[in-house]
């Protein structure tokens, strides 16, 4: 067996063992607490399987598949919007020092505010679907922006020198050198941003959304005391987030290969 494959298998095995250990601890603690407010893993997984297989409407009128797709769509929209804005702004900030100086104070003031704190603002100024997308946007925008700026700044200066001595300048230089050279950093920023955006899902759906969503699902189930469903929903969020990250990491690798850095 090739060394890499063996490594890979060991990796998966260790990871799985760790997760199983965690579930075991959960079970022990739940048995001790012995309250419906902390259901045991068996109950949660049974509920999860049942939800996924039957895919029935719950009292909010939505199927679990609709909850899932609603959240995914929301996050992708917020992500897409943030990426479209943050990447160009980041490239400009990295390339033109005066733009960075102008924008930097605003960014540094807004960035520490958690997306959750923007909920009243979002509710007041936007309606669904923009209100929830806005919350996701705030979580995603800053990591992408900062990664992009860092990417531009870390470009090997010799590449720029080489391009200039080949007669390239101004916009051409930006387009032909700065942008491609920043791609790996941009991809890293996108990956991180998407992860954060997915974490914002529950917060984002607090603003009042149409079409269901995993965040709304968890909160509603909590309200009526169906905690197995709450935990099942949390597991769904975790697993989906994991899958999204897996896809993003693959994309990141592909594009870095294209960019010749890998």
């Amino acid at each position: 067996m090739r060394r890499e494959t063996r490594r890979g298998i060991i990796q998966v095995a260790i990871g799985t063992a760790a997760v199983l250990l965690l579930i075991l601890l959960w079970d022990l603690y739940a048995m001790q607490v012995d309250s419906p407010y902390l259901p045991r893993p068996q109950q949660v997984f049974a509920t999860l399987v049942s939800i996924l297989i039957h895919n029935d409407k719950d009292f909010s009128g939505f199927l679990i598949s609709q909850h899932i797709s609603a959240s995914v769509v929301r996050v992708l929209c917020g992500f897409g919007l943030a990426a479209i804005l943050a990447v160009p702004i980041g490239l400009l900030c990295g390339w033109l020092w005066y733009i960075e100086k102008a924008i930097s104070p605003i960014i540094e003031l807004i960035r520490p505010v958690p997306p959750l704190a923007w909920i009243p603002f979002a509710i007041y100024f936007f309606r669904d679907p923009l209100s929830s997308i806005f919350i996701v946007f705030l979580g995603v925008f800053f990591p992408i922006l900062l990664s992009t700026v860092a990417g531009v700044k870390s470009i090997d200066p010799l590449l720029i020198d080489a391009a200039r001595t080949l007669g390239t300048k101004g916009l051409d230089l930006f387009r032909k050198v700065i942008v491609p050279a920043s791609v790996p950093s941009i991809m890293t920023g996108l990956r991180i941003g998407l992860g954060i955006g997915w974490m914002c899902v529950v917060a984002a759906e607090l603003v009042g959304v149409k079409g269901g969503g995993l965040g709304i699902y968890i909160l509603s189930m909590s309200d009526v005391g169906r905690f197995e469903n709450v935990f099942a929903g949390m597991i769904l969020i975790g697993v989906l987030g994991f899958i999204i990250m897996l896809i993003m990491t693959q994309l990141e690798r592909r594009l870095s290969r294209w960019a010749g850095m890998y």
Partner: protein
Amino acid sequence: MGRNVLVSIQNLTKVFEKDDTEITALQRLTIDVFEGELLCIVGPTGCGKTTLLRILAGLEKPGSGTIRFEGQEIRGPAAERSMVFQEFALFPWRNVEKNISFGLENKSLTKEKKNEIVNGFVSLANLKGFEHSHPRDLSSGMKQRVAIVRALATDPKLLLMDEPFGSLDAQTRNIMQKELLKIWAETGKTIVFVTHSVDEAVLLACRIAILTSRPASLKRVLEVEIPHPRDIMSSESIQIRTGILKELEAEVQKSLMTH
């Protein structure tokens, strides 16, 4: 080889500011570069050879003094004065073909013409079959060959080379030196070649400019009239070499005493 002056450098001074101290890299340097020649610049390490080259390329501004290219002041980098770097500086996201054609992209030539030029240089650099390879797949020698023909693709009037073979192992270096001479013979370009290897200078140069230690000015220029290809072991070569080494040693001693 005519004696037309391509570049005229007069009393060039360049001062850098680093952490509150001023470092004078070049002090009243005066030298001419003639069309079609291969001029080597040697000098003690850190004397400012690279700074001179970068000013020639237009990547740095001269402090005081004049530097004229074809009679005009150099205002910034341009494709007519292209440069080859020690670290190759190839664009990693572009393959060999695309690296070479980089400088052609903003020229108004037909696609066929561009392809012709690129193919020509691929042949010149002995890289047939590697057109679609990426820099990460190439050996150092191959990378430098790409870098050289990339710089040549724009048909520059002046080719600047900053210790281009410094990253290569001895064998590859030898091969590359021969390749360079071949390319130079075929293209007839004016080349300004910075190196700290006296052997290399003696092997390649028409003229050798010896710089003083920092702040650098011109110590001496000597003509090397041995015809190419040269034997580095011949007595003539050894004589010239020994002479240069003595002068460099003296410069190094001087710098040790004053700094």
